[in-house]
């Protein structure tokens, strides 16, 4: 792997983290109330949908959708749904509303839209970086959220506000990269 590809991978995980820095799929991150281990599993499932979706979306965009750009969003969402259905079967999880809301999110669609404009190698590195970064962000966020819940938080800040403040701190940390 050459240095620039490694930097693309690292950027997807840290500096350009899809959930924290780009707000893509941030609802899955903020709405997840489980512990760090379960959050890592859920993040892994989302990554398992994101990466193959981007791999399928790239040739479709470059060989078919360039002639019909108005179909891009619709086709990409359909691809993500299909991949999510396959992943749900492989993971032996029901393909219900909860699973769809977790995996068919802004991170998956944003990744397909962004990587479709790149070269294939860079697109795949970005996809892997974004997927791993999303899973890690889910786990770290859940771990921090668990610790804060034990502290005394003012009533108005319990729930979503404190979750957003934790995300703000994570974002500030990633800013340094």
């Amino acid at each position, binding site marked *: 792997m050459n240095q620039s590809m490694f930097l693309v991978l690292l950027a997807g995980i840290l500096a350009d983290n899809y959930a924290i820095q780009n707000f893509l799929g941030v609802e899955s991150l903020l709405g997840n109330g489980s512990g760090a281990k379960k959050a890592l599993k859920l993040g892994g499932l989302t990554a398992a949908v994101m990466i193959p979706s981007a791999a399928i979306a790239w040739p479709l965009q470059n060989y078919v959708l360039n002639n019909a750009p108005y179909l891009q969003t619709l086709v990409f969402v359909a691809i993500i*749904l299909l991949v999510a259905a396959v992943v749900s079967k492989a993971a032996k999880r029901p393909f219900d509303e909860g699973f769809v809301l977790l995996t068919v999110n802004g991170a998956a669609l944003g990744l397909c839209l962004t990587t479709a404009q790149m070269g294939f190698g860079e697109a795949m590195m970005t996809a892997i970086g974004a997927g791993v970064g999303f899973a890690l962000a889910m786990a770290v966020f859940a771990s921090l959220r668990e610790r804060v819940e034990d502290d005394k938080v003012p009533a108005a800040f319990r729930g979503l506000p404190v979750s957003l*403040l934790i995300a703000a701190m994570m974002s500030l940390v990633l800013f340094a990269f």
Partner: protein
Amino acid sequence: MTEKTSILQKDPLLLLLLGACPALAATADVRAALGMGIMVLAVLLLSGIIAFALRGRLSQGAGFATCVIIVAGCASVMQMLLAAFLPAFYNQLGIYAAIVAVIALTGRFAGGVKEAESMGQAVKTALTIGLYLLVVMVIVAAVREVLGFASIAGVSLDFFESYKISAMGKAPGAYIALAMAAAVVAACGSKKEKEGK
């Protein structure tokens, strides 16, 4: 009204959570927030009407996935309208114009609205939810733009020039401003609850 959509109407914090992506991404500028808010409102209305009209034909198992496709179709229509009539604004939103197709708010609303009692009620709920998110987004954007860029809707405010906090215009500022808005919403909600008791 179905349980899911009535919960969406009654829990303003849940609404902010489900609509967090556009509420964070498009709030660095008041004009972008206004445009994104209107886009979310339009997608909610359009997808709500279509999902309600097709409610009898949506199968039990793949019903929610079908609703996501309906929302994606509506978002595509809105994208095309934006690209045709407001290209500058369409370019400003970038990929976030398409992301409306998969935000949890629109998907969950379309998934729940098919069980509404009437079309009027579905439209009313879509309007309530969409307008609420629009107002919150514009307020958050105004705070971020003033503090982060010393301007409001592109008009520079000289007084704030020396007090600019650059982080407010970036990702951390988006989280902090939305957290403050959510805390105000939560405080108002608990005050109302106490008065009710």
